[in-house]
């Protein structure tokens, strides 16, 4: 299982969770000027199991999100991750080893300063390629584990501390260009941990074709300064139920790519028909080492992997994810079986009048 949340050193940020809860208590005191701007609580939960080379691990996970607008121009948003893991002890240790992490993933203020500029301050997800910002929540990803290259460009953690400028630079009915630029400072403490680094992303979206192309770059500015380069291509051909996503990334010591296609069988009676809820998924991925210095979380030897998944989207935002993967490398070929159930929740932070 390669969820980045697991790879990241556990930032057991009880303090951050306290901030999250405090925000929940304080926000109702703010004045909400519009009937549509009530803060929301959302997120997802899942119970995942993964059998890797014969060992089965269990991962219950919950990731609550809080989003609260303040006035006309500010949004405060945060996500926490509560993750348990049960893995077989093996050898001298019978039974299962249990561990748990509570980590804050981001806690940021977004100031919509200008129509084309949003200023973000706080602890934010690093905008490198797409996986970290878009696909990592358990209710979104089509596979329960992230791509093998997902740690590249995330400055050894996935979150930055400092500021980010982002927005839509240009939009028409045919094109849309967006950008993100960040600078993160170093913080070694458990809560709001971050590495010093800087970088950004630029992307072009063609809404009529539903095609998006983006480029990312960032640089670690502590220890051995390292550059990371990324590119992605996403395509959701109109009215088909198909989504094709792909990413390539190159780091100092390793590089790789993944290509994923998922298809909702909506041709058989629409998205909400019994068959339209079936979602076959396929992902092909490869990682290649450039040297043997292993500091990036990628496999230690060149690896190829094919993932075959079958997901089912039940009503009420419940989803079953199953997959089989075959992984090939010089250290041995392996099978990875995964099954899980994920759900998504979304409601106003408090009851309406």
């Amino acid at each position, binding site marked *: 299982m390669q969820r980045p949340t697991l790879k990241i050193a556990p930032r057991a940020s009880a303090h951050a969770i306290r901030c999250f809860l405090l925000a929940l208590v304080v926000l109702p005191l703010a004045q909400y000027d519009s009937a549509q701007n009530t803060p*929301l609580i959302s997120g997802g939960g899942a119970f995942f199991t993964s059998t890797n080379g014969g060992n089965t691990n269990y991962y219950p996970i919950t990731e609550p999100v809080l989003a609260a607008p303040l006035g006309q121009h500010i949004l405060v948003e945060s996500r926490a991750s509560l993750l348990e893991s049960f893995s077989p002890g093996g050898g001298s240790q019978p039974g299962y080893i249990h561990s748990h992490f509570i980590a804050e993933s981001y806690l940021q203020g977004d100031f919509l300063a200008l129509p084309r500029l949003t200023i973000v301050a706080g602890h934010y997800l690093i905008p490198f390629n797409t996986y970290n910002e878009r696909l990592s929540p358990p209710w979104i990803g089509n596979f329960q584990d992230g791509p093998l290259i997902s740690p590249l460009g995330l400055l050894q953690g996935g979150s930055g501390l400092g500021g980010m400028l982002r927005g839509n630079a240009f939009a028409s009915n045919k094109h849309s260009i967006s950008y993100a630029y960040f600078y993160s400072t170093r913080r070694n403490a458990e809560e709001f941990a971050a590495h010093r680094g800087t970088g950004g992303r630029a992307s072009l979206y063609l809404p009529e074709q539903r095609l998006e192309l983006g480029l990312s770059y960032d640089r670690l500015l502590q220890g051995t300064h390292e550059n990371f380069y990324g590119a992605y291509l996403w395509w959701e051909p109109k009215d088909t139920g198909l989504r094709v996503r792909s990413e390539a990334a190159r780091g100092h010591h390793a590089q790789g790519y993944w290509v994923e296609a998922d298809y909702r069988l909506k041709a058989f009676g629409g998205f909400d028909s019994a068959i339209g809820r079936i979602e076959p998924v396929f992902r092909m991925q490869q990682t290649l080492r450039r040297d043997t210095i292993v500091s990036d979380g990628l496999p230690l030897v060149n690896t190829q992997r094919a993932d075959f998944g079958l997901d089912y989207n039940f009503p009420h935002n419940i989803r079953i994810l199953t997959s089989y993967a075959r992984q090939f490398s010089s250290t041995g070929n392996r099978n990875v079986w995964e099954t899980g159930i994920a759900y998504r929740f979304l409601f106003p932070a408090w009851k309406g009048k």
Partner: protein
Amino acid sequence: MSFKYWIKGSLTLTLVSALGLAAQQNSTPATTPPVSTAVQKQPPAQPQSEGERVFQQNCWRCHDAPEGFSPRISGTIVRHMRVRASLSQHDEQVLLKFFNP
């Protein structure tokens, strides 16, 4: 990265793209994905509104559209997604109108 691997990668991409095109051939016209419980689907006879267009062009890209939500949080959702998906201010405004007709 070695040339051989890129070839394999592009072949996979071509294959899935071909699948997409094939699927596009026999696809049905766009339906409005489920939105706010307070927002009903537009009758098909009406021309597509700007908000519906923005919704259809964006809200299925990263995740499935939610099955329904309270209109009280529609502004919060749209602002959150404006930041996350770098939507334009115009997109935000028309989406809000679409969710709260």
